[in-house]
């Protein structure tokens, strides 16, 4: 099974039970299933990215895991507890960075962090948090005057303030500039090396590839593929496309073994040369688009 890949040395040292365990999750809105039989396992200490287009059910899934949305069917365990019935002790072990901003505009960064520190038994110190998210120069600034990216960073700081065992991040880098995104990635790597389990949603492929131990592709409320980023869509990626030009007309063929195709082409060529000859394999993006059904799946044979 693809869902049991070893996430790293930290997870093996902790309890064996997965941090997140989901079977047959269903959520309907007005009779339409937005999550439709989703299965998911995230190991302790693993960084897992849920990748998918808008409306695929990522946010709904993560909100059910956070225990703020009721499910219609299926089995869910987060840290061994059903989130729908969980109490404060469980909440203290969970960190959430949601899409909502959720902070009073009139408070400064330091004030809001100091205030919410009081909700945790052992909060991370405010100075450590602002350094980790790169907001040192903004500690005295009111939230209403922060940029969108800075607010996202503050949200991340608030999400990890209570030293959670599992962190859920729903599109954490939306609105961040490239520098802030890279800073955020460092933060996630830091959490990972602490042994924190991270489940994040994103629609950035590079982010999933950069951060995640494994990527789950969600389409129409189901997990259509789970693999380490380098192995995502392995079958689809085996399919190479050979392009060339014949009598001034672009030609192409899809095949799992381009070698024989090339040999035939070269053998048939008059000058021992084939104009415009290329062999391409699908990029991560091509694979992703096929997995989520944005483009029709490729099959072997001549191209139209």
């Amino acid at each position, binding site marked *: 099974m693809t869902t049991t890949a070893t996430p790293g040395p930290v997870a093996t040292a902790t309890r064996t039970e997965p941090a997140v365990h989901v079977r047959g999750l269903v959520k309907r809105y007005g009779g339409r299933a937005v999550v439709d039989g989703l299965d998911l396992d995230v190991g302790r200490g693993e960084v897992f990215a849920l990748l998918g287009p808008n409306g695929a059910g990522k946010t709904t899934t993560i909100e059910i895991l956070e225990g*703020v949305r009721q499910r219609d069917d299926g089995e869910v365990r987060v840290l061994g507890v059903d989130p729908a019935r969980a109490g404060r002790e469980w909440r203290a072990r969970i960190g959430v960075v949601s899409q*909502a901003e959720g902070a009073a505009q009139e408070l400064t960064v330091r004030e809001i962090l100091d*205030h919410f520190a009081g909700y945790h*038994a052992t909060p*991370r110190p405010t100075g450590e948090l602002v350094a980790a998210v790169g907001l040192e120069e903004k500690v005295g600034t009111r939230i209403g005057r922060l940029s969108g990216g800075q607010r996202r960073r503050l949200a991340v700081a*608030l999400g990890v303030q209570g*030293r959670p*065992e599992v962190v859920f991040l729903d599109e954490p880098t939306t609105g961040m500039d490239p520098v802030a995104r890279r800073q955020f990635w460092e933060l996630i790597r830091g959490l990972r090396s602490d042994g924190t389990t991270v489940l994040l949603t994103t629609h950035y492929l590079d982010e999933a590839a950069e951060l995640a131990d494994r990527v789950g592709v969600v389409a129409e409320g189901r997990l259509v593929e789970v693999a380490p980023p380098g192995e995502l869509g392995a079958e689809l990626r085996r399919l190479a496309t050979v392009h060339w030009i014949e009598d001034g007309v672009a030609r192409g063929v899809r095949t799992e073994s381009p070698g024989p195709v090339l040999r035939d082409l070269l053998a048939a060529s008059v000058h021992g040369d084939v104009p415009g000859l290329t062999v391409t394999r699908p990029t991560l993006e091509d694979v992703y688009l096929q997995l989520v059904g944005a483009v029709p799946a490729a099959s072997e044979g001549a191209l139209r």
Partner: protein
Amino acid sequence: MTAVLTDRPAPPSAARIALARVRLELRLFFRARQQVVFSFAYPVVMLVIFAAILGGDERPGDIPFTQYFLAGIAATGMMLTSFQAVGISIAEERETGQLERLQLLGTPAVAYFAGKAGQVLVTTAAQLALLLPVARYGYDVPLPVDLSHWVTFGWVAALGALAGTVLGVAVSALPGSAASVGTGVSAFALVLQFFSGVFFGFLELPGWMQQFAALFPLKWLTQGMRSAFLPDQAGAFEIAGGWEHGRTALVLAAWVIIGAVVCVRTFRWRRADG
């Protein structure tokens, strides 16, 4: 950063979070300048306007209008800082996702309400501390005559502010955007003020209005305030022929206790699923 905790102490108690919330709510209140000015100026301005228009009139029992009316002004000002301000602010905090964060942190609802209540008690005290000297020295309205009248004033004001807070929490659950909740809350407050005899003698109102108003805290708050500000014999002109302190305490306390329990159980941290 340090490694993940496996054995963690229990989260802070609801009381500790409630205290932190009171400090936060007060800080936020005093940073919203328009709200501060409006909350503190409103009762004073109402007093000035009504005294200018009706200052020469007298209520039953030869009581000058301004003296009779001060009780209503104090009560309606308290409704503004409790019921209206709380109802509108919760609807806004829900809409902007601030309540969602509290929910995700596992904040006990009662600690959140306590933060609102603490802020309301402090701002109500400040509001009254501004209104009473204006009435006393600007309009010669006598303040409560002795300690027992001050005690009455104290418990009626405190219970009234708390009951108003509970009512505010309850109305914040109305469906719709924060803006539409705000409109509804203001309209309801206006109607309730008229029904509760804030602007008129309560006795002059039609019976059905009196009965409707008796269900809500404002009528009892206003009546209790009159019992603190007016001479004892004026109680004869109340609808029951007396001040009804026992019933006032009962109705206000029932609002606070039953209302708080219902609100804790039914409170929504986020807008309905959609």
